[in-house]
């Protein structure tokens, strides 16, 4: 439906300040993400099979190849953020990232069975993904009035997730139609990726949003001197809270595994469980974003995003609690719904929460720092939980995780600024 809204060529130009509609740039970016996610999830879904079955890599080698690039993404993200902030080239940097990922499919196609070529293609894909994320989120945040950022991110994440759900289906269809021709999956993924780049080039405005809304326009005139985002106290508090909560997030795979083990479900379901959570996320991303934008406390201060972010983590805590109780079939539904709520209320909302605290000129870099911080904290959390599981067994480890998350929630509710942070005065 968003694609349709985006594609109406004869729509009248939007009057200034039309707050009820999602900015066209956000819809365009959502469409780009949707198409790109179809492309990338197609490859993600078949790559392990291709490497191990098609090329005869041992699982050990595959794990090595896969793990090698995951760490690097975080650093590249920071680089992408910085590049975008310098002279405001958000669209160009994001576009380069999308293009690099699309071209990496061509690399997979041409590499044949050469492990070196495959490693290079995977590296290019991760590089592209790392580069584009922060500039894209900065573009979204700069494309609309700050009051509706939650909804903007909600719409974008919903479209993004739609692509992620469609990708494996598309890959499955191609494999089915060609009797396991993996190269056909790469070829289709390449074409889809190119379409994503083209949509970005054609429909996403180059300058961050011609937002005529009164609140969002960055001040005209000479660019103020950049100041490190980390020096901003409001942003620092958001970052601390996100990292703290991230470190007590044990990772979806563990939750799914606990479900499978608790019910002795067939392992084939392991691939289906994430789809359930993603579907809930997809349904709730927009409403959660809207609620987060709207809610205000009695004094009239708009604290909805903060509340939504904290409540989202409460949902995660609820999922832990469900798993601590005896596991029964309804538990599966409960955990998947809570996990979907968690993502809907935190993923885009965190960006909407933090973006206004960042000056427009440092936004991509700031969001990159935030995303990297959260990702590293989550990595730490997952590793810690894995270690606890190995040392103490699954129940004590889950208890520990639940207690840690409850503690982190209490701390975060104190750390997070009560009023929505606004960009600090741009001149010191």
């Amino acid at each position, binding site marked *: 439906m968003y694609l349709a809204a985006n594609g109406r060529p004869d729509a009248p130009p939007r009057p200034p300040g039309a707050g009820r509609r999602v900015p066209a740039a956000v819809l365009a970016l959502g469409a780009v993400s949707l198409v790109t996610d179809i492309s990338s999830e197609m490859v993600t879904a078949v790559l392990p099979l291709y490497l191990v079955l098609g090329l005869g890599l041992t699982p050990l080698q595959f794990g090595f190849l896969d793990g090698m690039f995951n760490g690097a993404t975080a650093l590249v993200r920071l680089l992408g953020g910085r590049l975008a902030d310098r002279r405001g080239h958000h669209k160009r940097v994001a576009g380069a990232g999308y293009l690099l990922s699309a071209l990496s499919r061509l690399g997979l196609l041409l590499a044949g069975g050469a492990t070196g070529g495959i490693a290079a293609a995977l590296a290019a894909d991760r590089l592209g993904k790392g580069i584009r994320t922060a500039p894209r989120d900065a573009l979204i945040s700069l494309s609309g009035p700050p009051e509706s950022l939650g909804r903007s991110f909600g719409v974008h994440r919903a479209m993004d997730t739609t692509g992620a759900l469609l990708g*494996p289906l598309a890959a499955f269809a191609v494999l089915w*139609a*060609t*009797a396991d*021709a993996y190269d056909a999956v790469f070829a289709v993924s390449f074409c889809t990726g190119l379409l994503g780049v083209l949509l970005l080039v054609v429909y996403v405005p180059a300058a961050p949003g011609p937002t005529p809304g009164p609140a969002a326009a960055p001040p005209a005139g000479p660019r103020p001197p950049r100041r490190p985002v980390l020096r901003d106290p409001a942003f620092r508090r958001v970052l601390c809270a996100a990292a703290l909560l991230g470190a007590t997030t044990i990772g979806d*795979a563990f939750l799914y595994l606990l479900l499978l083990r608790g019910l002795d479900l067939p392992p084939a379901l392991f691939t289906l469980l994430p789809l359930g959570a993603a579907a809930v996320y997809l349904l709730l991303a927009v409403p959660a974003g809207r609620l987060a934008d709207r809610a205000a406390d009695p004094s009239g201060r708009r604290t909805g995003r903060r509340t939504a972010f904290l409540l989202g983590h409460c949902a995660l805590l609820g999922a832990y609690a469900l798993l601590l109780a005896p596991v029964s079939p309804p538990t599966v539904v409960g955990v998947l719904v809570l996990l979907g709520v968690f993502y809907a209320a935190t993923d885009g909302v965190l960006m909407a929460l933090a973006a206004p605290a960042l000056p427009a000129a440092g936004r991509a870099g700031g969001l990159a720092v935030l995303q990297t911080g959260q990702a590293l904290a989550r990595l730490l959390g997952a590793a810690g939980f894995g270690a606890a599981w190995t040392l103490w067994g*699954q129940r004590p480890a889950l208890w520990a995780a639940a207690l840690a998350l409850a503690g982190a929630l209490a701390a975060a509710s104190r750390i997070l600024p009560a009023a929505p942070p606004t960009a600090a005065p741009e001149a010191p």
Partner: protein
Amino acid sequence: MNPPSRRLRLALVVTAVLLLAGGSLGYVLHARHRERPPGQQADASFDVSEPGLYFRDTTGGRIARQGGPGLPRVTGGPSCDRFHTAGDHALCLRKLPGVPARTEALVLDRHMREVRRVTVPGIPNRARVSPSGQVLSWTTFTTGDSYNTAAFSTRTAILDLRTGYLIKSIEQIPLTLGGARHHDSDVNYWGVTFAADDNRFYATVSTRGATHLVEGDLRAWSAKALRENAECPSLSPDGTRVAFKKKVSDDPRAPWRLYVLDLATMREHPLAEPHSVDDQAAWLDDTALAYALPGEDGRASDIWSTRADGTGEPALLVPGGSSPARVG
């Protein structure tokens, strides 16, 4: 934002969509009609009652027989990814197309007639038939069993044709490790080999980062670990020795060497093969073994043989083959 530019952009996008969709469709159709070996059944003339070395021919993926030195290769078996035969039956593992990966285990009699067909999750990995042909086992790689999503785990099944009873995963077998009952969620079994009594078997179990050789008892439904660091066992025809691959290096490109373990003395010795072997070796007779190695000159794999006592030099047995099984 004036109308012509909007229309132009729309035209551009529509053109691109048509071109890219056309390209995708074209590639898919091309891949669909490309020459690929279909999952073939065995020709009427092919059976596994003749003496000789049976193996998977890597060009085409069908099972073939090499009668002896100088004799022509007889082709025309079913297409399989893994194959083994002994006694009255043959076992053929095939990967079914599609995601998630599934494997079809096809049990055939000596005239290649289908006896039983079982579909299990995962990618074909090991196949073994007991000397009498009455008990069969296969292993597949499955994804997603582990909390590390990139890791693979294995699933080993045992099928008893005498009773028709199928154990889809032997993971629940009571296991004794180091003299104590072992309970952990991370146990993985693979590479079963059967003794002549159709009851005793050997296999690999991996748990807590180590692999062990286990001896199992089908009737008593129990297993105990014999020693560490022994994978993919293969019991000699006389039942006295086990050939296995031993991890000798942390280098992921060449981790294993072939060893033979004497079950009476529990002493092991390396074989003459200097390369890393990632295969469940097959005994040709009581003195020699066959196994697959990555092929030379662009072949997917070759079958080599070497003496079981560790002497001599490895010899190339079948260029372009894998899954060796000796009959007669």
